[in-house]
């Protein structure tokens, strides 16, 4: 499985995730959240930023079911779901992830028929600090 190849802007997201916290970069001056993280605020051009804690609730905005050809670790689990989740705390912040049966479960651990646009999900974290999503009403 691929691990995130982080950069200076993204590194805080991943270190918070390893602590079980979902945090999103926001401007310290105008307050606008932004994703993906970047050096300065596109609204007010401030370089001051903070990492704002999210409750971790969201809704599925869209999803796909990849089939082979895929990298071997992913092909072995295909077809699996990949979702884009729109955060309840910050509706324009959307995170790519997987809906799983429980934290750390396989990418194909939830039947594809259960995935639908608009479904409520809650963030969980793997042991390695990768955010995943579980259905709030399984």
């Amino acid at each position, binding site marked *: *499985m*691929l*691990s*995130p*190849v*982080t*950069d200076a*802007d*993204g590194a805080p997201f*991943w270190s918070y995730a390893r602590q079980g916290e979902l945090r999103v970069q926001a401007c310290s001056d105008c307050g606008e959240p932004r*994703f*993906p993280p970047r050096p300065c605020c*596109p609204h007010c051009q401030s370089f001051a930023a903070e990492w704002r804690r999210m409750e971790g609730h969201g809704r599925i*905005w*869209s*999803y*796909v*079911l*990849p*089939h082979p*050809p*895929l*990298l071997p670790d*992913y092909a072995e*689990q295909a*077809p*699996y779901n*990949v979702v*884009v989740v729109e955060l309840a705390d910050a509706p*324009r*912040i*959307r*995170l*790519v*992830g*997987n809906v799983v049966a429980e934290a750390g479960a396989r*990418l194909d651990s939830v039947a*594809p028929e259960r995935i639908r*646009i608009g479904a409520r999900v809650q963030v969980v974290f793997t042991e390695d600090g*990768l955010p995943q999503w579980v259905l709030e009403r399984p």
Partner: protein
Amino acid sequence: MGGIKDATAIVGIGQTPFAKHLEEDERTLACRAVLAALDDAGIAPGEVDALASYTMEETDEVELAKAVGFGDLTFFSKVGYGGGGSCATVAHLAAAIASGQATVGVAWRSRKRGSGPRPWTNTTVQLPTPAQWTRPFGLLRPTDEIAMLTRRYMHEYGATRDHLFNVALACRNRANQNPAAVMYERPLTREMYMTARWISEPLCLFDNCLETDGALACVLVSAERARDCRQTPVYVHSAAQGLPAQHHGMVNYWNDDPLTGPAWAAARHLWKHADFTPQDVDVAQIYDAFTALIPLSLEGYGFCARGEGGAFTEQGALEIGGRLPLNTGGGGLSEAYVHGFNLVNEGVRQLRGTSTAQVPDAATCLVTAGEGVPTSALLLRS
């Protein structure tokens, strides 16, 4: 006011055969396509002084120039973002020639995507942004990234798989008329489409472009010189690149309106500088790495309103005789996938009147580069 409107013309086009596997390497294929285009134009290689290609092009200017015998080059540029750069190569040459930086320009693309590796399998060259936010979760390939937008598009606007099939079918029907197309002898039926294997649901095999070895090139000169050339000039009427505010490439999930993209930005400039409107376009060559890019582009370039791109494809609108004949050589879906350069050359053929699926009296053609990445587009006229 000076500008590029009708100031330059494409006077030569050339290409190699297209196939899943060609024996020759990319450099040799590039040389063959460029020399074929110059021969078509009746211009000697020594007269070329400008080049434009893609940043992903592996044959660089030095290699090409010394092999085919170019003279002194005074302008050379490369455009980024893969297939988003196709039309921009021509646009850069048009700007260079119109502004006096060069006189004879060649644009080209040579690629062995058919027999070479799939780019997404090389995980060591993934840039941290945005790949860190997508790849670990198994969103690995361009098809997965565009499928995500496609699902949302279908959900918001009621577009269906039949609409995507209409796109695939129109391209295949044109390829069935084009002996140079990879899919020349391979008809497509609705049953084949609906029962095809998935690649990334909701996209199936036939929603994805071909994997092709091949190369193409075209030659650009000033309108004045074009009148003395061997071929009927095809004028560059308007050209634009497009990178809209807060755009994120194929993973355009992180702005207020992810279902509008670079096409909208390119279109605003393109039409602003044109003497005609979408209603006046006789034939379109729209970048089709995936079928779903067509309804999005139809909306972006103003052929229909938001959300109507799927319905636009109904009742044979994209076929010969329809409202907007599409990708008349077969496109990336059924002729060849060479980062959209075959769409440029097919646009030229239509306006010369020499297409294998000729639109009667075609006088205006829209050619677009990849939607879903920073893009570019051309309005061509005869």
